[in-house]
């Protein structure tokens, strides 16, 4: 291959073989050309480089092809997507579980809050009612019985009405607690209910004694005034 014919192969990649086969036209007449040996040595060096580089490029191309095949491998992509799907589902389960727990906690607090608010307004109503009944009782006591008797009647009625209201209210609260507890622990709730029933019998006996005592007090107070 001569340097001239080389031009027609310019588009194609130069190979080491091309370089080695290239010959150069001799200079005519005067020896103004390059030293033949130097040129040949240089061409040989270029050929060796080209050989080396060509080999490297081929290696890289093969590696890229290997990697591309591995990445594009259908079951590798699928495996990754599968793993992602598993993780996503696990996360969604965790989210739902925690959301349910938070919602439950929220309901408990909302119930407690409205129960508390109801209890407060109920208590306000009861206090007003107690005072109203006490006023009535005080008014019912005829004027000539004196201020002390009126005040006593007021206080006694207030105490009685308030105590009854408190007992009803507490019993209601206890029933509510027992109901909730009973839902969670049925056997224990049954045993507790039996105990509570026994306790209430004793309490109603005490009430009778207390009232008698109170009446005695009123009597003695009235007596000392005179």
């Amino acid at each position, binding site marked *: 291959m001569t340097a001239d014919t080389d031009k027609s192969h310019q588009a194609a990649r130069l190979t080491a073989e091309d370089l080695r086969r290239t010959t150069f036209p001799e200079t005519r007449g005067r020896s103004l050309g390059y030293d033949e040996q130097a040129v040949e040595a240089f061409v040989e060096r270029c050929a060796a480089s080209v050989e080396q580089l060509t080999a490297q490029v081929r290696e890289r191309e093969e590696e890229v092809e290997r990697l591309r095949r591995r990445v594009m491998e259908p079951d590798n992509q699928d495996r990754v997507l599968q793993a992602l799907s598993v*993780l996503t589902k696990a*996360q969604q389960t965790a989210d739902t579980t*925690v959301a349910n727990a938070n919602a439950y906690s*929220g309901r408990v607090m909302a119930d407690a*809050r409205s129960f*508390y608010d109801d209890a407060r307004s109920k208590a*306000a109503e009861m206090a007003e009612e107690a005072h109203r009944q006490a006023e009535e009782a005080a008014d019912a006591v005829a004027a000539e019985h004196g201020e002390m008797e009126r005040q006593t009647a007021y206080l006694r009625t207030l105490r009685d009405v308030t105590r009854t209201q408190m007992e009803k209210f507490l019993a209601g609260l206890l029933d509510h607690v027992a109901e909730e507890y009973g839902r969670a622990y049925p056997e224990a709730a049954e045993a507790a209910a039996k105990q509570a029933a026994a306790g209430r019998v004793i309490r109603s006996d005490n009430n009778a004694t207390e009232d008698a005592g109170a009446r005695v007090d009123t009597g003695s107070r009235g007596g000392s005034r005179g």
Partner: protein
Amino acid sequence: MTGIDTDGLKRNFAAVAAHGGDDVALFFYSHLFLHYPETRDMFPPAMTRQRDRLIGALGHIVSQVDQVADLVPFLQDLGRDHRKFGALRPHYPAVGESLVATLRHFSGDTWNSKLESDWSAAYGIVADAMMDAAEEAAKTEPPFWEAEVVDVDRRTFDIAVLRVRTAEPLPYVAGQSFAVEATDLRPREWRWYTPANPPGDTELELHARLVAGGPVSTTLVRSAGPGDRLRLGPPIGRLTLDASSDRPLLLVAGGTGLAPMKALVAQLAADGGHRRTTLFFGVRTVREVYDADALAALDTAHDWLTVVTAVSEDTQWQGQRGLVGEVAVVAGDWSDHDAYVCGSPPMVEATVKLLVDHGVPEENIRYDEFGES
């Protein structure tokens, strides 16, 4: 952002988000945890809230991607704030990879190499801003401050005043907030709280209101006790006193929004009490007046301060009745005052609107919304 097709990014993000923000975020975190399992520990078990935050932040960044200069303060705060989660430099490239993979997955056929390189470049800019801010912050402050609960005073069954002591003094300004993690009881869940006292000591007073279903508030009000460890994040917020202003002050607080106002009042007192201040504190029912003694004491102690408590839904209240914003605007002319508003989002929105309608210039109004906890 030179060379980046920001319109292309916005279009791509909109198309991806159309698949459902939650699904996109689910894929993102699954991808991140698959490739870097050690990052799972930085997050709480339930990720619903975290996903919302991620999509919100991404949406905000993408919408502003043309005005990067405006974004920078937001990114700097974000980067500094992320230190408390344990975020380090090596995490950022991992997040970038998963982000690009997520976008690629949901883009389907519309994905191309220009989008890939533009997203990577945009993410690089965001991450650099965040990492640089984190590094800058690391020179002067720790990622979080260790603290311990000293006392929990349950004023009502759902409102508690906590005293908390920090190991190192936390450098905040009266009115600022910080994120709190109940490290022993509810790790990796952070919520914002505002100290009710100005800086100066290592003891902080926090007002916590139990939000139904809220993990951190429930813990602080119902489960926390002396000795429980907390972690506090870096302070943020603009509900602070304007040092250059000598205008009188109008403070309007709803519920535990009282906390920053108490801090401001204490700061004003420490500064000499030169500015006439009126504090309106509003709640729905009488039982929610959880700090009456402290407010009465402040009113008595300072002649430059007037405190008014308004109850909106309880017939038992003998004092001012009505929504606190409404009570405030009819009580006086506040147009020459600096106004501060803090409470629930509806309360803040309504109150700010009332103030503006009644002649208070918007630039003189500072507000903070107390959201879910």
